[in-house]
């Protein structure tokens, strides 16, 4: 279709990590499988990577990997907020804003070309970008898009937060057509769906989806763990894609450690606790129901040479850090896991959750 005729969906959220990217991927994938031609743009990106010398938003790289869209990467990610950007803007607002607007509009024209639907992914909540006059509400208005807001599960808080975000979009004369509630406790899914439907109806909004919390989407890989704690990899490079479902701190005797080690657990243990490391390795080798995700050796201490040799005979990823056990554990507790383009299992899970729990037919109708 020509520009201006395609449906334009702006996916916003009440805060970071609510599940915008999960919904974006799922929506694109679902409509693509219904023989719709789809396009994508993330007008303003904050987390980016360098590809061929260009700054490209991380989520854009993921979307392109999954959906293989016919659009140059740079046009799907026209503006990357680099370091010092805000100060540069404040030094010359009259010069910067028109340039950004032009860049977004020109890229959007290319991303939208010959598509039935263009999904526009926002950044953070509706107000993000206000400091440089291009918040999500303003961008949605500029691109004449209708908005779906993704929020977290619960009943009171999501409604409060949606109200706040809705106000900002309405101020820019942008229509919010519905809400997707994400990460709802599975046992409360039906109850939450019922009450959110009622609550949003009072605000003139449709609940377009209620997606249950899926812990697997939040499991980091050992590689992500290694990067988060700046660890050195001692062993098991070929298994760095192992998922970490649980963290066990090895501050106990070896036989007690065996009790706590579960399938896909990451053991964090001081580097001089050969006994606990050996107990964990033996558990991994001998129990068919337990596969250890990896071991983090803390305190900059090294295992005895004999233990190191045995560990090398396994595929267990072993990481070493100088920081103490408590610090490493705290860092990993707070880790934010984004879906990355190499993680096919998570991509499959995310897209299937959206297919199953979002009312895609209704969404398509509302976008008309």
């Amino acid at each position, binding site marked *: 279709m020509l520009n201006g005729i395609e449906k334009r969906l702006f996916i916003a959220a009440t805060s970071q990590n609510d599940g915008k990217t999960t919904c974006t991927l799922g929506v694109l994938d679902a409509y693509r499988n219904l023989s719709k031609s789809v396009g994508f743009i993330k007008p303003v990106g904050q987390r980016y990577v360098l590809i061929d010398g260009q700054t490209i938003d991380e989520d854009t790289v993921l979307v392109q990997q999954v959906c293989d869209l016919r659009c140059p990467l740079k046009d799907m990610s026209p503006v990357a907020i680099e370091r010092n950007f805000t100060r540069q803007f404040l030094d010359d607002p009259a010069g910067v804003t028109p340039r950004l607007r032009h860049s977004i509009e020109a890229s959007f024209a290319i991303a939208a070309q010959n598509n039935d639907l263009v999904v526009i992914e926002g950044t953070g909540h509706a107000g993000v970008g206000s400091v440089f006059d291009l918040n999500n509400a303003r961008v949605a208005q500029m691109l004449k898009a209708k908005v779906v807001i993704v929020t977290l599960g619960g009943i009171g808080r999501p409604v409060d937060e949606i109200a706040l975000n809705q106000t900002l979009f309405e101020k820019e004369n942008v229509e919010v057509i519905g809400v997707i509630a994400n990460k709802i406790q599975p046992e409360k899914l039906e109850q939450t769906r019922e009450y959110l439907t009622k609550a949003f109806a009072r605000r003139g909004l449709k609940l377009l989806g209620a997606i249950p919390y899926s812990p697997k989407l939040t499991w980091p890989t050992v590689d992500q763990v290694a990067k988060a704690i700046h660890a050195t*990899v*001692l*062993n098991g490079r070929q298994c760095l894609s192992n998922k970490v479902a649980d963290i066990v701190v090895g501050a106990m005797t070896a036989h007690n450690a065996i009790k706590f080690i579960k399938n896909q657990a990451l053991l964090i243990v001081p580097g001089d606790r050969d006994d606990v490391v050996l107990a964990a390795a033996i558990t991994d080798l001998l129990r068919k129901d337990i596969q250890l995700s990896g071991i983090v050796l803390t305190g900059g201490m*090294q295992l005895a*040479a004999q233990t*190191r040799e045995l560990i*090398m005979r396994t595929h267990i990823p072993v990481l070493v850090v100088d920081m103490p056990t408590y610090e490493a554990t705290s860092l990993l507790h707070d880790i934010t896991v984004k879906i990355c383009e190499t993680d096919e299992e998570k991509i499959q899970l995310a897209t299937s959750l959206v297919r199953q729990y979002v009312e895609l037919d209704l969404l398509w109708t509302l976008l008309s």
Partner: protein
Amino acid sequence: MARIIIVDDDVEFAEDLSKSLQQAGYDVEVKNRIEGLIEDIVLNRPDLLILDVMFPDNPVAGFDVARAVRLKEEIKSIPIILLTAVNQEHSMDFSARDIDPEWLPVQDLEEKPVAKAKLLKKISKLLQPTVKK
């Protein structure tokens, strides 16, 4: 002329080292695989073994070979030098300090890349008591 067997899956490295040792007057044979190695050593009775540690199917194959050599009566006295990049690839910090008659029964452990003069000196020292050049 003293005979040396170099065991290393890195063909280029092994050939390069072989040439250097030949130039220094040694009779050198290169093996790139672990399979059948002990039988070869029994058959050929080298005066010294230079062993890599990591092989494709076994990251500590060199340790296993050294132990197997010590268990064979007819070859157990052959001196062994471990020559390895294990510490670069795994940060495992193995060193000559770890040499132990039971656990790591070798005469020396050197990290790749090793200076040729240094290696030649070590070889010469290990061969001195039993072999006259």
